[in-house]
């Protein structure tokens, strides 16, 4: 470790000590504690906004993005140190954002300079909340089968169709959306466009899930005008952007298999006493969970060095989400009847069963586990069609 990095670590530690509010060093109690920002933000605690604003002003919500786009301009080694220091104090994520984890990397790669300057800084500061318009009622796992049309109308497109499973569409400000600009070519007829959810002709309808929440929506487009300047990459080349972005989405979702910072609740539950069979199941799960933690570190290091296989995010997504489902199944078993209470204050309004139910979607959203296995088999193992 060089002196420069040691200095950076010391300064980072001091800044975080001074600026991360105590409330933001406590584990989240439920989905409502997450910070999403946006035009109409909601905060369960005022420190959420404080923490997001302080980190955003420093560019540390997106530490490795260039400074001119609102990032921190940190090197991979500095970014790693920042992550380690955040973990050290059990700091909460200052900003949850599909803009950061999905759209941002795609814009950095495929966006025009104008698009980058317009959108990236607002993403970094949590000013605009994004949602993703990918899945359709007849295009889920077969994503490229999408039908939402974008008809050429001179300097703009007219978009018609329906999306589904649009996470938080009812609370999002803008959408990044896959649309069909050519009906004669399946993957080669898709374009990637950005538009304001306040545009005329956009409507959303929440979908109530088994967890009792409605994070997902059906989203309808009725003659929505989208300027062509909002298209990312060339017309009919949207599938390249979509695939690149999916890699980042899978990378993000794969983190779910990791234990929570500041004490693994499953281990906490096991300490209270469980039967020997469950104890053994938890211990063997813990082996996989810790090994996957090493895998995540390796994957990030390889990504940063450009060494990761391009299809490796599929493996991370597959393993992480299956692991997360197992974790919550074991937590329910360890919790016993305490983990069944749905509405009580003592149960944080059913945080445990709702989280357990929520994880069941992990291996469906962002490409099902079966799709990920297909990708590994074809693109990494090179198995025949």
């Amino acid at each position, binding site marked *: 470790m060089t002196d420069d990095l040691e200095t950076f670590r010391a300064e980072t530690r001091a800044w975080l000590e001074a600026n991360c509010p105590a409330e933001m060093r406590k584990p989240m109690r439920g989905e409502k504690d997450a910070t999403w920002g946006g035009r109409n933000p909601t905060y369960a605690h005022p420190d959420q906004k404080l923490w997001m604003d302080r980190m955003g002003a420093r560019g540390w919500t997106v530490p490795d993005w260039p400074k001119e786009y609102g990032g921190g301009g940190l090197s991979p080694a500095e970014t790693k140190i920042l992550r380690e220091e955040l973990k050290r104090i059990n700091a909460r994520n200052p900003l949850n954002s599909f803009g950061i984890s999905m759209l941002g990397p795609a814009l950095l790669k495929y966006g025009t300079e104008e698009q980058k300057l317009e959108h990236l800084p607002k993403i970094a500061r949590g000013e605009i909340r994004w949602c993703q318009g990918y899945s359709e009622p007849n295009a889920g796992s077969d994503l490229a089968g999408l039908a939402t049309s974008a008809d050429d109308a001179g300097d703009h497109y007219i978009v018609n169709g329906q999306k589904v499973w649009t996470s938080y569409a009812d609370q999002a400000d803008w959408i990044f959306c896959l649309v069909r600009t050519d009906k004669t070519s399946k993957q080669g007829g898709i374009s990637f466009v950005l538009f304001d959810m306040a545009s005329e002709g956009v409507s959303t309808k929440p979908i109530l899930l088994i967890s009792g929440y409605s994070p997902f929506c059906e989203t309808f487009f009725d003659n929505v005008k989208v300027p062509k300047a909002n298209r990312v990459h060339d017309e009919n080349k949207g599938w390249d952007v979509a695939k690149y972005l999916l890699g980042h989405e899978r990378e993000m979702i794969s983190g779910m298999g990791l234990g929570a910072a500041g004490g693994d609740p499953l*281990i906490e539950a*096991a*300490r209270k006493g*469980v039967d020997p069979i469950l*104890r*053994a199941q*938890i*211990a*063997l799960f*813990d*082996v*996989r969970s*810790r*090994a*996957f933690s*090493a*895998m995540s*570190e*390796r*994957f990030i*290091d*390889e990504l*940063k*060095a450009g*060494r990761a296989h391009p299809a490796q995010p599929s*493996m991370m997504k*597959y*393993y992480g989400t299956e692991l997360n489902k197992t974790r919550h199944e074991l937590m329910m078993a360890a919790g016993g009847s305490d983990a069944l209470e749905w509405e009580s204050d003592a149960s944080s309004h059913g945080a445990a069963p709702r989280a357990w139910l929520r994880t069941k979607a992990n291996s469906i959203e962002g490409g099902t586990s*079966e799709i*990920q*296995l*297909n990708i*590994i*088999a*074809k693109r*990494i*193992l*090179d*198995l*025949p*069609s």
Partner: protein
Amino acid sequence: MPLYLTDEQAMLRDTARDFVAEHAPVSHMRALRDANDATGFSRDLWKQFAEMGLTGILIPEADNGLGLGHVEAGVVLEEIGRNLSPSPFLSTAVAAVEALKGTAHAARWFPGILAGETVAALAIDEHAKHDGRVEMRAERSGNGFKLNGAKRFVAHGHVANLLIVAARTGEGTTLFAVPNGAKGFSAAPERLADASLAAHLRFDGVEVDADAVIGDVDAGDAPLSRLLAAGRTGASAELLGVGGGAADMTVNYLKERKQFGVLIGSFQALQHRAAHLYSEMEVARAAVLKAAQLLDSGQDAGEAVSVAKAMTGLATTLAVQEGVQMHGGIGMTDEYDIGFYMKRARVLAEMFGDSNFHANALAEAAGY
């Protein structure tokens, strides 16, 4: 330190891969087995390891070794595992060297190890399960000690020049470096399921000098835990090689075997299982590298080592089971190599504690 091999480590891996594949492929192990070889490995091959400097991989440069770390040792062991090469590398160049490093024993034993003449064996287990219980006794006698007791599952124990022996002394455990040939010592080699040899050792009043003590009397836990951490990490790397070798063979088989007029690798049922196996092996690989890097950095690596040993046990067991299954009937034949992988994996998975042992250790450390 990034969690992948540096360019230098990757070069070492390539060198080791070529060397082991050329000089000790699976057919080498098969030939030793078919000849019912009484040594259990090739002394010529051990010499060649020495000529390449590999036997001194963990020996400090000041002692004329390569002065490398557990990551590098693991790189070599993975290739040994991939080729099922019978070798005293793990017990001698990794575990024993780690126990002796920095002690008065280095000057005596390292030259022989560097020359490829000395083989070390680890007399640490006394039961069918590796559990850390030491019942063998070492009592003070004259200027030294008298050893009484038995050890089992000692790889190379019947041919080793040097035995690293854990024995109970007055106040605790003491680790001894015992030269072969002592009166009262006997070794009964047994052929194991994988055709390797492991010995039952008996010590009936074996006399050793006081200077046989590694470190201090009653303070054997320190060198023993160094030996175990190195041995467990090394065994994990070797298991990774066994599992990786089996997985590679299997995926290649899926690409060439036809049934129903098509390559069986086109069947989604098999593709998904192969992809799942790939995932488990990748996760295991990360766990092994993490443990080795932590050991090399001098940080507390105990839990990471347990994770590595347990995870490679789980992943490699899956690799060999899927390997035999996907090969179908031919996988059950002695003529085909995949079965050897299954047998070697079982032996290595048991050595230094199996997945259950290490999962349990993690649970105890976490307080549940």
